[in-house]
């Protein structure tokens, strides 16, 4: 188990009812964090156009997470 801080944005923040949580997760990759928090919050957004950052750097879903990491979950963006 790892202690991870997970930050939610936009619709993910609304699904989670919080902008940030500190969770104990059995997660190896960013994808694991996405899937475990999604089921936890009853969100159904597919991972397709979502993005992830680890400790303020954009990352791939296959990137591994380590104890203490801050994982940022971004729903599909729509700037401009």
């Amino acid at each position: 188990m790892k202690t991870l801080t997970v930050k939610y944005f936009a619709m993910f923040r609304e699904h989670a009812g919080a902008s940030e949580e500190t969770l104990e997760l059995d997660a190896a990759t960013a994808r694991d964090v996405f899937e475990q928090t999604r089921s936890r919050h009853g969100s159904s957004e597919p991972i397709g156009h979502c993005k992830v950052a680890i400790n303020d750097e954009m990352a791939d879903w296959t990137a591994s997470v380590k104890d203490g990491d801050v994982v940022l979950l971004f729903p599909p963006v729509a700037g401009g």
Partner: protein
Amino acid sequence: MFAISDKDIVVDELRDQVKNAGSGGVCVFEGWVRNQNEGRTVQRLEYEVYAPLAIVEGKKVIAEAKQRFPFLEASCVHRSGLLEIGDCAVWVGVSAPHRDEAFKACRYIIDEIKVRLPIWKKEHYVDGDSGWVNCERCANV
């Protein structure tokens, strides 16, 4: 230059930033809040921005554009917060010796910004409802 601003975008200041005696012109794109989207009447709009990464990614987009379409100056500002109909949400300006580079770099920057930066748009409709706007390329997945 790339910035996120929670204040009104002042076009004249930005235009001055891309002025250059070697430039034959500037291509500017301004994104405005329009009164409807996908058939629904919009009252106002809210931009949520994760600024630390939006700024890093915005600068990266401008650097990429410069490599592909060499230009002299470029500047881009994106709004955060609450906007009304007609407000300027994003301003992109690119000056270059010749217009072809200016047009292409400006288009590249706005296209990439819309799909890559951690910026989310929530529309508030006149019927009281509201919703997060999906990104442009998501519909095609």
